[in-house]
């Protein structure tokens, strides 16, 4: 590290290094240090076999924990699985070997990621298979469903986590933040979800979970690559000489990121539209019958007709349902089919003495 005492410099009559210079200062890497990092991410020698074995065991175990945790609807267990999961490392290895132009390591890391992905989905499928008593797509609970409909928010999370991951890797002293990154990023839980939902035959849910995983994968690799580039991890001579090629290597990942952003954006928009319609229906119910309370509400606005399936508790006779349908149609400007169940609530009291 260059001498950092501005007072000394002043005293020596040398122009002080400004604060801005300090901020822009990049870590200085020696080739040995670089090799050390790359080796840790993906060993190139005889330790590779142990690495792969360790990876295989951890991916199976972490997915098992995640799958059971998802089915048990336990957020804590799922988080535990994320800490055990080994997927972050090969992904960061992808980034590192991408910017450092190490083809062999890149291919190796890619194979690990692919193998890990398939293994995790298979384990998820297997867990659902052995735990299959009574689980139906309808009985899936919040933890697992949360992984089935990704939005642009999830993309944002993945990008931020990827940046964090890249930063942690290239700035020693921040290794304690790595578990935090692992948790923020959803890698093993979505894969477990894919496996479980495929076993249950809910292919649309599985597709959503796969989209979430792919988004995270691409965003992490890309963001970590960018941070590494900016942090001086790549030696200048490689960075300057291979600039064009660097762009060519990164470009497919940028395209891939845009490609996943499109369905995410569409999905986000439809999620927003559905939520806004659901809120409108709730408000309309109050307008329709102030004494009614919503017990259950399921709305769908995709397609040319909207659909509302609603259970309402009311203490009186209630207003006829056609009035509700008409109110919804008039307010939202869309034709709607409403199915309603009434629960009658009657309160009473009695005393003796």
């Amino acid at each position, binding site marked *: 590290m260059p001498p950092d005492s501005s007072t000394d410099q002043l005293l020596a009559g040398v122009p002080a290094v400004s604060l801005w210079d300090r901020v822009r200062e990049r870590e200085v890497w020696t080739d040995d240090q670089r090799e050390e990092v790359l080796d840790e991410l993906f060993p190139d020698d005889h330790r590779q076999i142990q690495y792969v074995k360790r990876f295989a065991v951890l991916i199976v175990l972490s997915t098992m924990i995640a799958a059971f945790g998802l089915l048990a609807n336990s957020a804590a267990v799922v988080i535990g699985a994320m800490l055990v999961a080994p997927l972050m490392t090969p992904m960061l290895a992808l980034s590192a070997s991408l910017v450092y132009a190490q083809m062999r390591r890149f291919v190796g890391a890619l194979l690990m990621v692919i193998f890990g992905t398939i293994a995790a989905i298979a384990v998820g499928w297997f867990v659902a298979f052995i735990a299959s008593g009574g689980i139906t797509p309808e009985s899936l609970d919040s933890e697992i469903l949360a992984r089935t409909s990704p939005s642009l928010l999830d993309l944002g999370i993945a990008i931020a986590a990827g940046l964090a991951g890249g930063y942690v890797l290239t700035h020693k002293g921040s290794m304690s933040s790595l578990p935090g990154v692992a948790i923020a990023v959803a890698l093993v839980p979505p894969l477990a979800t894919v496996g479980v939902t495929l076993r249950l035959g809910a292919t649309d849910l599985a597709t959503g979970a796969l989209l979430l995983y792919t988004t995270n994968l691409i965003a992490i690799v890309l963001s970590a690559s960018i941070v590494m580039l900016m942090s001086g991890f790549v030696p200048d001579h490689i960075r300057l000489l291979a600039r064009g090629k660097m762009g060519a290597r990164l470009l497919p990942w940028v395209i891939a990121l845009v490609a996943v952003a499109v369905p995410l954006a569409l999905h986000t928009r439809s999620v927003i539209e559905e939520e806004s319609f659901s809120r409108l229906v709730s408000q309309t119910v109050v307008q329709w019958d102030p004494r009614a309370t919503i017990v259950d509400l399921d709305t769908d606005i995709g397609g040319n*007709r909207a659909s509302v399936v609603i259970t309402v508790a009311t203490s009186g006779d209630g207003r*006829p*349902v*056609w009035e509700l*349908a*008409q109110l919804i*149609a*008039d*307010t939202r*400007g869309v*034709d709607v*089919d409403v199915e309603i169940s009434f629960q009658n609530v009657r309160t009473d009291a009695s005393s003796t003495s």
Partner: protein
Amino acid sequence: MSRSASRTCEQMHRRPVRRFLALGVAASLVAAACTSTGSDGRVVIEVFGPYRGEEAVGFAATFAPFEEETGFDVRYVGTGSFAADIQKRVTEAELPDIAIFPQPALITDIASRGLLAPLPESIIDTDSSEKRSLGSATIGQHAVWFRGGAKSLVWYLPTAFADRGYEVPTTWDEMIALSDTMVGDGVAPWCLSIESFASTGWVGTDWIEDIVLREQGDVLYDQWVAGDILFDSSEIRHAFLTFGTVVHGNKTVVGGTNRILNTPWQDAAAPMFEDPLRCMMQRQASFWAPQIPEGFTFEQDIDFFLLPGPTEAPPPILVSGELAAAFNDRPEVAAFMEFLSTPEAGEGWAELGGFISPHPDFDPSHYGSEIDRRVGQVIEDAPRIRFDGSDQMPPVVGTGTFWQAMRDYIRTGDVDAAVTLVDDSWPRAVQLPEG
């Protein structure tokens, strides 16, 4: 885009109407011609009816060409409990412009309170042939029979019949004999279930009406429907007992009484489509046809024969459908009523399937569904057609006690209780004591 309409004009004129009625002036008052316009400036016509889901989509296909040609905005809302809801709307004076009635009796009832606008002269039905009777003359003056349906149909699988050597019966006795043969062969002859939310029982009333029409003829049928013959008469009791041989016979209905009462009517014939099938015939209206599972082609895999009469002569046909009537005579409302009375009105819906036109001049090339075309032909060719009886009886009976009586009879087999229940509820003129 908000669809709210400015309706203050309507409401302002409704209150004077209520006051007039309260004073007992039963003149045929009609809300003053005050137009309702939507936020987009189009003139609004509000229609209220029983169509929901796919039927609502079909009805939209009906009025789409009318909207295009006139620039009016037809707003339809449908309800699953039409009979109760329209009564409530009348009581609360929240009237639509036009209502689509599945029961002519409701029309008679509401018209008698002076709330319906008479049809424009040009479209009053002057067909007074004996062939068809929709009920009272009031109906003819106020309502347009817009959509039809036939009820006296027995659905079956031709291949299943052929495999077992069964022949389509042409008389009632032949059908009973066939039913006995089927029981002997170990398969239930009848697929029957009646559950239908608050309307559970109407499937049974259809059976009784078809039986009365065949056993007693249309003259007595008309008298019975008008209330001039009691349910507790030998003729009507006989019809109940005939129905009893179907529902209470040993293994004549798949699933027995429990299934009859608790399975939705739409699923009644599900066992007929199983492999191996567990029932052979379903007597059910043409509007059941959308329940036919995918992969069963009409005429090859599934067909119907007419519920036979006592002889081989073509039997009378029980029909149903909906009639449109208007609550006011605003020009746009009258225009829509005129449109509904034309054969062209049904074309859009017929092309989608699930619509049968009762209009003799309807162009059958517009039928998108072969079933609809055949049923349209059945109605056209029938020597006698009669509108569903319970739909013509006073609402308290037709959409109330008659349904209850059928539920009770199926469950208990007690004819006495069933017929007494209905007769006791029939609103008759009070006989004042003499002297």
